[in-house]
């Protein structure tokens, strides 16, 4: 009954069962001396059986089919019951089918239909020979029971009867879940949230230890999703745990460091580092076993989140590039060619018209330049071989100078990297902020500061333009920036610079990534050596990078 075309097999069985029932009734009725009625009932039932069970008509799941078959069969059997009570068993079959195909409700409907039709046929004129006018009453519970048993069997069988190949069924279920989560709980499936939950769980299991979750970037570096960037000791532990796909324990000068791979099947997707500087008590065999169990459970979840993150990023990049292509090959070229036409007309025009055309040409040049920048924005990405500060600096320099802004860049970047997804969002936020400055601020100077010390980062974009006093038409842009910041667990503020320094003009957009904010344990991260005082003062206008 199973296999690829299980229902086709069932169709064969259904026909065989019906033919047997008909044959049984025919033989008994003929034996009772009613060959003509037997032939009539048999012919009608064969017709019903064939039409009712025919593949094509009889797709499983059409609940009304068994009901219709019940009605038709009950009519025939009921009307001719005086001749052949032996055909009554046939009535069992539509009910069984209702149960197997559609469940209890279809059984109930078929049963009611059968009962009603039999009751109606019983009203027909009495038979002269004094034979019973209707189906014996004891058949009713038998019919009901058969249907009920079939419905129960359906429930049991259904589990073992996958309609789709199991791999696809699983994949589809997983994707549906991802889809739901992604739609309704956009923060539920990001690696950061999941990793934070895991870290908190582990720190509960191994009291006193510090946990970090690291993933491997495409460039081969280990990047903390949660927790501190690795020091040389943890880095070597992480590397070994990654390669061995097994627990690695190492200790030096009182510090015990454990590397635990997070596995999805055979594959390592991340490494959890547990370190304890207080002595080895928190990392007893018992608590380590508990941590391993927790990590084993979290593995598939984290792997899915990382994968989903990748998929989302790829899809986004794809779409951005497609848009860039569309603008590049379409509207931008058309507008450029209009510009050339204006140049052409202006060369033949009278000086007065030429002056006006000149103004139009300037406007058009600005528009095409804007389109060029839009294409540039859409294509800009994060290069894993170049630091984030460099990427942001290059971008701001390029775009700022095109708009006549004097650009000041000040960076302080550790060699460790932030997760790629975070870096991409930071770039997009800076793009949006710089676009706002270019379009609305009327500024002369633009300051960009980038401080990256994973897992912390601070990026500010400041200008000396007209500030936020007038309600800006681009509040949507600010909303977008806030959404992006939320996605990476950062806070974003847009303020007038006068709030910090009463003599300053313009706006400052600040993105602050401070993971310790989100966690309750104060001993989770070491104190930020840079302190926050240094982080809130605005750049005076230093240019170029400074080394750590």
């Amino acid at each position, binding site marked *: 009954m199973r296999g690829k075309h299980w229902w086709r097999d069932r169709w064969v069985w259904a026909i065989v069962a019906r033919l047997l029932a008909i044959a049984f009734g025919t033989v008994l009725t003929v034996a009772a001396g009613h060959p003509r009625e037997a032939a009539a009932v048999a012919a009608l039932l064969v017709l019903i059986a064939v039409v009712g069970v025919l593949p094509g008509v009889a797709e499983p799941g059409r609940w009304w089919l068994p009901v219709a078959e019940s009605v038709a069969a009950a009519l025939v059997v009921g009307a001719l019951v005086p001749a052949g009570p032996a055909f009554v068993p046939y009535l069992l079959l539509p009910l069984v089918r209702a149960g197997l195909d559609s469940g209890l409700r279809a059984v109930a409907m078929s049963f009611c239909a059968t009962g009603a039709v039999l009751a109606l046929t019983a009203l027909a004129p009495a038979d002269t020979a004094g034979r019973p006018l209707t189906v014996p009453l004891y058949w009713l519970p038998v019919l009901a029971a058969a249907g009920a048993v079939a419905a129960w069997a359906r429930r049991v069988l259904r589990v073992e009867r996958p309609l789709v190949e199991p791999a696809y069924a699983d994949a589809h279920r997983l994707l549906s879940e991802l889809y739901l989560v992604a739609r309704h709980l956009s923060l539920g499936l990001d690696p950061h949230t999941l990793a934070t939950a895991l870290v908190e769980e582990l720190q509960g299991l191994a009291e006193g230890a510090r946990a970090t979750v690291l993933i491997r970037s495409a460039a081969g570096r280990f990047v903390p999703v949660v927790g501190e960037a690795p020091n040389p000791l943890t*880095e070597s532990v992480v590397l070994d745990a990654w390669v061995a796909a097994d627990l690695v324990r190492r200790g030096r000068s009182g510090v015990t460091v454990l590397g635990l791979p997070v596995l999805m099947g055979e594959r390592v997707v991340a490494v959890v580092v547990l370190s304890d500087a207080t002595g080895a008590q928190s990392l007893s065999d018992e608590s380590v076993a508990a941590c391993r169990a927790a990590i084993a459970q979290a593995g598939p979840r984290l792997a899915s989140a990382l994968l989903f993150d990748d998929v989302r990023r790829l899809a986004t990049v794809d779409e951005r590039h497609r848009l860039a292509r569309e603008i590049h090959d379409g509207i*931008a070229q058309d507008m450029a060619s209009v510009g050339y036409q204006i140049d052409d007309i202006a060369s033949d025009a009278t000086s007065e018209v030429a002056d006006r055309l000149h103004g139009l040409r300037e406007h058009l040049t600005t528009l095409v330049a804007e389109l060029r920048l839009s294409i540039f924005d859409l294509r800009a990405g994060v290069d894993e071989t170049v630091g984030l500060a460099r990427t942001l600096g290059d971008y701001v320099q390029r775009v700022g100078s095109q708009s006549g802004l004097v650009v000041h860049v000040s960076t302080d970047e550790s060699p460790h990297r932030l997760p790629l997804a975070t870096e991409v969002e930071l770039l997009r936020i800076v793009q949006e902020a710089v676009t706002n400055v270019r379009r609305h601020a009327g500024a002369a100077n633009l300051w960009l500061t980038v401080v990256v010390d994973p897992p912390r980062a601070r990026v500010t974009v400041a200008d000396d333009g007209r500030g936020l006093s007038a309600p800006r038409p681009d509040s949507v842009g600010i909303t977008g920036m806030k959404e992006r910041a939320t996605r990476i667990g950062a806070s974003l503020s847009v303020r007038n610079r006068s709030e910090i320094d009463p003599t300053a003009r313009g706006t400052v957009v600040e993105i602050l990534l401070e993971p310790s904010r989100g966690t309750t344990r104060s001993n989770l991260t070491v104190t930020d050596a840079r302190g926050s005082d240094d982080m809130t003062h605005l750049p005076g206008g230093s240019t170029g990078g400074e080394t750590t």
Partner: protein
Amino acid sequence: MTGVQEQITVLLVDDHQLIREGLRRAFDRAGDVEVVGEASTVAEAVDALHRLAPRVLVTDVKLPDGDGIALAEKARKSTPALGVVVLTMYAGDDKLFAALDAGASAFVGKDAPAEEVVAAARHAAANPRAFTARDLADAMQRRMNAPAGPKLSPREREVLELLVDGLAISQIARRLYISESTAKTHVANIYEKLGAGNRAQAVMAAVRLGLVERHTE
């Protein structure tokens, strides 16, 4: 090549017909320039270059069957005296520097007036080997101002200094109280960051970039 005067012959390569028409009209207006051919793909352009032997190639960066900058590079190699003007709708500095590296004579954005393209073609005919672009100076400055290249962690800096001093990895490990495998990881990271393949290259790069003090013997 009608020879009234020394005409500048131009081959126009762009897949947008309206762009080609607009530029052709601008060249016609100029008087001293003659558009001898048009092409919309790299293949057509290669063929036309052979057939028409123009003095100047004006090409878009993005062509349906390839890259205009690669085309420019190839054409420049086979015809050293060819003037090459690269047109673009892209705004990134990378295209400008790619055109410079390919040996182009001029780089013009498509937002610029047609006269600028004509002027670039004249320049290309006169000085095919001298690169000009409107925001070349800006771009150069941006490149200079870009935050410095490789950044080493304090630990990597220590390892690098010992590398430069000529210590073996096992000695470095002992000196810094780290395991040999950790020292190896640091060295590998240093190589990666400096784009070096071996110790000598790493030391050279480190000295060149000013990452370590030059040792005077």
